[in-house]
């Protein structure tokens, strides 16, 4: 799939996410849009070998959306890929329907989510099992940038580096906003690449909305002899002008007026794509 096709898919998913979030009054649009191009690259860019025919199998890649509050994008993708039904997707936000976090009762979901800082250790174990079982699959996770403050993430980084678990691929959605704060280039982000590399990883950095860069990095990551962490610089709320880089859109739902503006913006992009 070429770049313009991926951009078009991304915008279509954004529009569908928007409509569902507004219809059900639930969603974390800012952080969903910031990682949406990463998800599109993984699922449509010939990266994850996961599809409607093999998602229940043992040979395929594994993926954990550690920032599970961005689940709505994944639900839309899983429906588009034919892994979950339209009815299931439309149950989002209903009593007994799809929730605001992922769980493994949903086809195509590899891990429960809801608490941060766990997934990198888990994918390290999964990737280790892949090697132990002489399989060739990779284990991926998308982490939020605020999540990088969790100590267990760093236990996992040290572990996967020490054990050279080369089939672990982490992607940090560096949207620079937590729930309440701007996350500057301080702490680990002051010297991210050096820190991660000193712990035995390959550190890459990309524009998280540039498919060529994302796919090139993922291609490298697959072939690295060490685990790979990709710092993806993203924009919270990417794709809808008034949502971009705004703390308000961590979990706000657009008013009818805002919905109309967002709809027009995304529809224009889709039409022009």
């Amino acid at each position, binding site marked *: 799939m070429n770049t313009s096709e991926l951009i078009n898919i991304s915008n279509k998913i954004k529009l569908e996410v928007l409509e569902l979030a507004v219809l059900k009054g639930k969603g974390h649009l800012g952080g969903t849009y910031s990682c949406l191009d990463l998800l599109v690259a993984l699922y449509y860019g010939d990266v994850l070998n996961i599809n409607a025919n093999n998602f229940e199998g*043992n040979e395929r890649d594994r993926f954990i959306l550690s920032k599970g509050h961005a689940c709505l994008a994944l639900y839309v993708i899983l429906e588009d890929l034919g892994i979950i039904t339209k009815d299931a997707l439309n149950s989002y936000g209903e009593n007994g329907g799809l929730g605001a976090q992922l*769980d*493994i009762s949903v086809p195509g979901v*590899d*891990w*429960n989510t*809801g*608490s941060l800082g*766990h997934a*990198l*250790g*888990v*994918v*390290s*174990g*999964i*990737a*280790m*099992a*892949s090697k*132990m*079982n002489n399989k060739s699959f990779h*284990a991926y996770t998308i982490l939020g940038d605020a999540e990088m403050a969790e*100590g*267990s993430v760093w*236990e*996992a980084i*040290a*572990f996967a580096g020490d*054990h050279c678990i080369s089939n672990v691929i982490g992607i940090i959605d560096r949207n620079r906003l937590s729930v309440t704060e701007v996350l500057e280039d301080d702490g680990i982000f002051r010297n991210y690449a050096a820190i991660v590399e000193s712990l035995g990883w390959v550190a890459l950095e990309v524009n998280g909305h540039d498919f060529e860069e994302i796919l090139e990095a993922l291609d490298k990551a697959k072939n690295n002899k060490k685990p790979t962490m990709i710092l993806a610089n993203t924009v919270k709320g990417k794709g809808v002008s008034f949502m971009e880089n705004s703390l308000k859109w961590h979990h706000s739902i657009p008013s009818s007026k805002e919905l109309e503006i967002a709809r027009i913006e995304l529809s224009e992009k889709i039409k022009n794509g």
Partner: protein
Amino acid sequence: MIDIRDAFFDEIYEIASKDKNIVLITNDMDIYSLRQFKEKYPDRFINIGVAEQNMVNVAAGLASCGKKVIIYGISSFLVYRCFEQIKFNICSMNLPVIFAGVGSGLAFSFDGPTHHGTHDIDVLASLPEMEILNPGETFSAKFCAKLAVESEKPTFVRLDKGPFPELSSEKNIIDNCFSILKPVKKVNIISTGSMTSRAMKVSEVLENKGNEVGVVDLFRIKTISNQLINMIIKKSETIFVIEENSESSGIGSIISNLITKNGLSVRLKILGLENKQLLEYGEREWLLNKAKLDADSIATKIMEENFI
């Protein structure tokens, strides 16, 4: 007598020789029987270092791909430091990971409440998916190793350390849950873990004074077999629970719940440790004596309550 940890891990070693999916992970803990595992199966032994949270998460990942993972560490660090990892990545995913936690009761008597395993049972019992095993003699330690490996649920094995006797056998074990070590009488002792050999001593003290009590070693403390109700509780006038756990959060509470839930009429007395973080250091026996959990004090208590 052998170290109860070796009894458990020797059995694991045997199972691992046939089951290539067994993987052992530890946070830098050692014991003789682990060394033979490490030497024989280096590819299935991971010393993850002092990083317990990651140890549990890695175990979850391995288990999700079909590995049978046994985690070995100090019990209190597994339970308390990793509680969310256990709840979230092991239990909510219902992965059959085995936790071999060493240090039940006051096994680490000189190390203070960070190391004591006196309050962990109700913490673990709060995890709906978790099975809890608590062997107190070497036969049940081996038996629990088999049970844990065969289980399709997460299982926490509360292990003691040091030499323990062999008190049970296949024929004493009822429903993979408890051993009847002395036949059921009107007054019966239910004990678990380290207190089982003590319960046997208590029964001898009482016998020497002409009073007979039954002794039951409850080694699967969750989920409890209905046979405990039918064969022991319903047949008892009085049950003494003897345990090296907080008297408010050990097997006494579990049995108390069982009695009330089933509307049974039986007198229950719990002899355990006071509900506090014990900031006293000394030999285990010294601490237990202070808590009046030595065999003579327990026997006297039972005498006073029942036979005078």
